[in-house]
């Protein structure tokens, strides 16, 4: 089995470092700062253009997109990624490299707009479309203006752009290798039409594509203005200096980390075909200012779309590490070159063509990030965070809107609302709705009223679930109950694509794992049909669609949590009174006023029997919540798959 590694770049990296150290900065600090700010403004404008003019809620509301500017180097260097989703922007340069390689200099023209979605051409998963346009100035190709966005449909046999049941790339949907969607300034009608013929909801997708093209065109326009102002040479100098700048700051930060080798395991729930607890094995070596991450020994690739391509693997690693360095350091090659990844081919973290990768940005990306985080937790406990949920439990929900008796409108929507909480850190509690380690709070959820206006759905509940957050000195972000029912449609089909239902967000240094994580249908008679994260199930009118998001993992010993905060948590029903007493050891006199003496005694008793785990759990399959839902009349099914005629029976 061969291994993919970017260690081969070491020599180049050293050469770069050497040249960086002997060349004096050519740009004065003022120009440097001015250009830096101007580029941030360019990317921000690209993002606003995309967000405000997009059609589907996954982009306009959930903000599952990222814009960035790269230079035309090989590989392209990030000049500015601003607040792009880590899972996107750390992969974009790979996709743009593939575009550049595919077309070569002779075929890249001013005004072209390129599109790619194939994981084997540097992309993450099929649902993410990378769109990029070259920026030419005085005949020379200098930059790329790029945007990645998650689209609602990719023409899969299944009614979802995250078709995890597809067992190869051909059944996943339309595989787009580098393609020109616009040629020298003109959108190609033939290409656009071919794309739209191959997807559901063509109006949606057309709107989103035009919006995405508008975003990169806007970026290009502003870059040209910057070139007018600064000339090409200055910006080229900037582009190398911003890399040196990030390099300098990253080097300094990593040098303060203790040298050593750390190892960890993390798990994917299932492969969609009944194989459970697929293991990612991670070995991290911190050596001076380099961090080496090796996935040797990880499990073979899965049958369903739970595999990572090389881009996903690399960026899931860097995502975890970038979260632990100063967030102000620009994320470009100067920073990323300090991270070396290697992974054996044919494994879940580095799948071999034509293995499916439909859910890669979550499964296994989140598990890879977890594995790296667990190593970092051992190396730099003060900076590491406890586990964040893995989207669980999310679905692509589809059906036919029959609210207007005269028009039947097929619809599809990805609702992120029921998404997991984030992990606690050494200094503060976790956030709710962090969704996944790959986005860490960068998404928004769809407002309830927008959901109900656009779709034949009525939301029954959307609020915090008591006791869902991992206990600790700092508590994880809470999990949420998100419950809805179809109304005016007959039935909805649901394609679950998340992870982390059987493997909960981990707690650190005495902190407990997050609790929750379940996806089920509540039948009219009150019985439940509980499914695993990767699943398909239908919900009819009169039944409930129930998503219970996990809370994030806790950090530190719960017995060390400030009793006043425990009291406030109990008063606010974040935690139950029982948890306050049994887990946190806080005893109240009355009305959530802690009794200091009784609390002290209670905590002394509890601490006697306690062994604090540094990482909890240490074994796969530790989650209990979804199992607790299954009573004698309820059903649990692992990986129920859609029938081939699901569409026809809606």
């Amino acid at each position: 089995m061969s291994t993919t590694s970017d260690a081969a770049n070491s020599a180049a990296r050293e050469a770069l470092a050497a040249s960086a150290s002997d060349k004096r900065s050519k740009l004065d600090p003022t120009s440097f700062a001015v250009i830096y700010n101007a580029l941030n403004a360019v990317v921000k404008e690209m993002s606003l253009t995309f967000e405000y003019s997009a059609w589907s809620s996954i982009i306009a509301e959930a903000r599952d997109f990222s814009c960035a500017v790269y230079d035309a180097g090989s590989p392209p260097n990030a000049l500015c990624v601003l607040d792009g989703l880590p899972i996107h922007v750390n992969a974009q340069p790979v996709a743009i490299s593939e575009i550049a390689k595919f077309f070569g200099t002779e075929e890249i023209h001013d005004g072209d707009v390129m599109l790619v979605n194939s994981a084997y051409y540097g992309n993450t998963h099929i649902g993410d479309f990378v769109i990029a346009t070259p920026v030419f100035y005085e005949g020379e190709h200098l930059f790329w203006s790029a945007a990645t966005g998650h689209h609602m449909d990719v023409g899969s046999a299944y009614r979802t752009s995250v078709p995890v049941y597809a067992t190869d790339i051909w059944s996943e949907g339309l595989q787009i290798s580098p393609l020109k969607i616009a040629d020298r300034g003109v959108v190609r009608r033939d290409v656009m039409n071919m794309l739209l013929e191959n997807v559901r909801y063509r109006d949606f997708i057309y709107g989103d594509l035009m919006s995405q093209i508008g975003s990169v065109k806007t970026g290009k326009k502003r870059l040209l203005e910057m070139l007018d102002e600064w000339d090409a040479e200055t910006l080229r100098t900037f582009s190398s200096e911003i890399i040196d700048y990030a390099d300098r700051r990253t080097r300094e930060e990593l040098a303060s980390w203790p040298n050593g080798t750390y190892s960890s395991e993390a798990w994917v729930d299932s492969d969609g075909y009944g194989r459970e607890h697929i293991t990612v094995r991670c070995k991290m070596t911190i050596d001076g200012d380099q961090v080496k991450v090796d996935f040797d020994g990880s499990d073979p690739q899965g049958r369903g779309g739970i595999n990572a391509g090389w881009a996903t693997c690399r960026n899931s690693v860097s995502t975890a590490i970038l979260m632990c360095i100063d967030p102000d350091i620009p994320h470009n090659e100067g920073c990323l070159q300090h991270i070396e990844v290697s992974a054996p081919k044919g494994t879940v973290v580095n799948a071999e063509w034509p293995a499916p990768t439909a859910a890669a940005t979550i499964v296994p990306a989140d598990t890879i990030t977890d594995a790296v985080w667990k190593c970092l937790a051992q190396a730099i406990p003060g900076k590491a965070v406890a586990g964040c949920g893995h989207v669980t439990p999310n679905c692509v929900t589809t059906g036919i809107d029959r609210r207007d008796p005269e028009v039947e409108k097929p619809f599809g929507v990805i609702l992120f609302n029921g998404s997991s909480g984030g992990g606690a850190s050494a200094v503060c509690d976790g956030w709710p709705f962090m969704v996944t380690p790959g986005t860490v709070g960068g998404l928004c959820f769809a407002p309830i009223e927008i959901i109900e206006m656009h779709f034949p759905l009525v939301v029954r509940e959307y609020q915090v679930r008591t006791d869902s957050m991992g206990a600790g000195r700092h508590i994880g972000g809470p999990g949420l109950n998100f419950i809805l029912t179809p109304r005016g449609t007959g039935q909805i089909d649901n394609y679950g694509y998340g992870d982390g239902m059987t493997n909960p967000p981990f707690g650190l240094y005495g902190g407990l794992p997050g609790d929750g994580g379940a996806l089920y249908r509540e039948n009219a008679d009150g019985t439940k049909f509980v499914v695993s994260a990767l699943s398909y199930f239908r919900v009819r009118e009169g039944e409930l669609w129930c998503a219970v998001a996990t809370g994030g993992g806790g950090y530190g010993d719960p017995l060390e949590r400030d009793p006043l905060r425990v009291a406030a948590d109990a008063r606010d029903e974040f935690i139950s009174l029982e948890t306050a007493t049994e887990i946190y050891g806080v005893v109240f006199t009355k009305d959530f006023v802690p009794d200091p003496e009784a609390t002290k005694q209670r905590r002394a008793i509890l601490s006697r029997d306690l062994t604090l785990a540094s990482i909890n759990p240490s074994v796969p399959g530790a989650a209990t919540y979804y199992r607790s839902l299954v009573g004698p009349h309820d059903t649990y099914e692992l990986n129920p798959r859609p029938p081939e005629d699901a569409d026809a029976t809606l």
Partner: protein
Amino acid sequence: MGMRLGIDIGGTFTDFILATGTGELIISKVLSTPAAPEEAVFVGVNDLAERLGLTLDAFVSDCDHIIHGTTIATNTLITRSGPTMGILHTEGFRDVLYLRDGFKPDRYNLQLEPAAPLIERYLRRGVNERILHDGTVEISLDEGSVRAALTHFRDAGVTSVAVSLLWSMINPDHERRIGEIIAEEMPEAYVALSCDILPRIREYPRACATALSAYVGPAIEDYLTRIAEFFQTHGYRRDLLIMQATGSSARVPDIQQRPVLAIGSGPAAGPPASLFIGGREQEDDLMLVEMGGTSFEASMITAGQLPKSADTELHGFPIGVAAVDVHSIGAGGGSIAWIDSGGMLRVGPQSAGASPGPACYGAGGIEATVTDANLVLGYLNEENFLGGRMQLDREAAEQALARLAEPLGMATMDVAAAIYRIVNTEMVGAMRAVSVMRGVDPRRYTVVVGGGAGGAHAAKIAQELGVRKAICPTVAGGLCAFGMLAADVGHDYLTTRPMNTGNMDIDAVNALFSDMETRALSELGAQGFAPEEIKLARFADAKYPYQSHEIIVPIPDGELGDADVQRMADSFHDTHERLYTYCLREMPVDMNGWRLTATGGLPTLPLHSESLGDGTADSAKSGSRSVYFQELGDFLDAAIFAGELLRPGMVVSGPAIVELPTTTIVVFPDHTLTVSEFGDFRIEIPQDG
């Protein structure tokens, strides 16, 4: 015509601008009194009366209009000094305020404290009821659940209650009934219903605007009552007008109904001021550049229309109201320069504020600020700052800059020049945020300069944006107080009723506008406006089906017919294409929110103009000094002019400095300053091409 008085309470000073019947403007500043802001108002009004040689009563009763910008609401929010507050939601949705829109700022920072909601969870309760998106009642209101929640609130000491149920903007019955029950159960409590505060789709901004109203409402009510009483006691016969975030002013009772509109009251007067100044200078497309001590405000005015944004956030909370779009960043004269861990020079957003202030204030500040840089660069005059009322300490400024110069390996002067340039870049970024980022090309706009620090920076910012013209009025230092004199009295009305241009019920649209217009005429009538004096403008919140974000587009007046539907759709397609590079002309358009803006214009301020004299400004020249110009990379000897001596028609060619009591204008090399017939300083900025 009588006098008109504008009062703007700021962090350090409370500004007064009085327009006398002849059009003369009197500017006055007194120290603010944050503990009891009305004190400064009383002192300042007394001062003005004395200056005019009038008794307090004679002065106040001579005022036709008193317009006030208050910081009470803003301060209550910033200092979190509002009442104990509870909120009622539809059962199952008690975490609307906590969950916000889900977005976590500062993406890669995992050690950021979670955002604190306005109301703690135990005071956010659900009540059993449910209304669906079309307004039908699915679950009727369970009054027992309301009373139980109120009992809980009462026990917890709640004195202000917000109510925000799902779909109340379509069917407000349940909220109204809850209002009645609160009046029975907690008669002393302050109540805010979301169907009154913000009848707009999207539960989070609606709940937020409602909670904000319940939070600042009691304090506003007390304050406004006291201040209105003061003026009434002394003979003021009209209603006191309060500046609103919407850019127009409203009567005290109107503000008491929707207190959220008093948040951001002061800065919202900047754009109306620009409009007025632009208007007399015959400029329609204006860009406000207002730079004070700690913050920089930017705003765009296109075709003489106040810029409105439906997504306004104040202090991190969306208010959901179409407020005047004033974009604020932490960049001002007091912004501190510092070096980050990568060795990059940064400026702000921390500010030295009024205390200790910039190093050159000599009040104990040791960190270099923009003002220190400006002094060292020669833009400011240590002997003639604030009209000579404040002496600046050049040596302290140089020392502060030297502390940065050493680690940067730069000369002190170069650091000063860099600070000047970096802060300009940030302000240019803010200008782009309100212009280019929204698809508006700033180059055809005219910059209007405001704020004490504006004159030293605005022309340079304008130049970087490609702008060719800037106007600095003599009132630049108190632009917002001036704006209050110029702002209209007005109300914004909103009705949510989802429709589509493909099958629009035009009669229903006519009916809802007719309803809003009747209310508008009656409410503005109460302020003394005759129907023909009231201007009505209609807008719709429009989007393509399934799009989430609306664009507010103007729609035709009068009785609408079927032909107007296409015009409304076209108005949307055009705007969408301009903003986002594409449109889908064949696609029918969703129109969900219907807005009416009703304004009554105060009598136009008399224009005080003088015929233009000849071009020589020699008579106003007061000397010269050495001033740094970045474009030359060197110091030049620049002529200094006393702004008050510059008469209409006079021309000052850069490099030069014009000193006014409340601001200093830097005229850069190649720039030309001309005094207009209204006394405004017009600056021409050369641009290539």
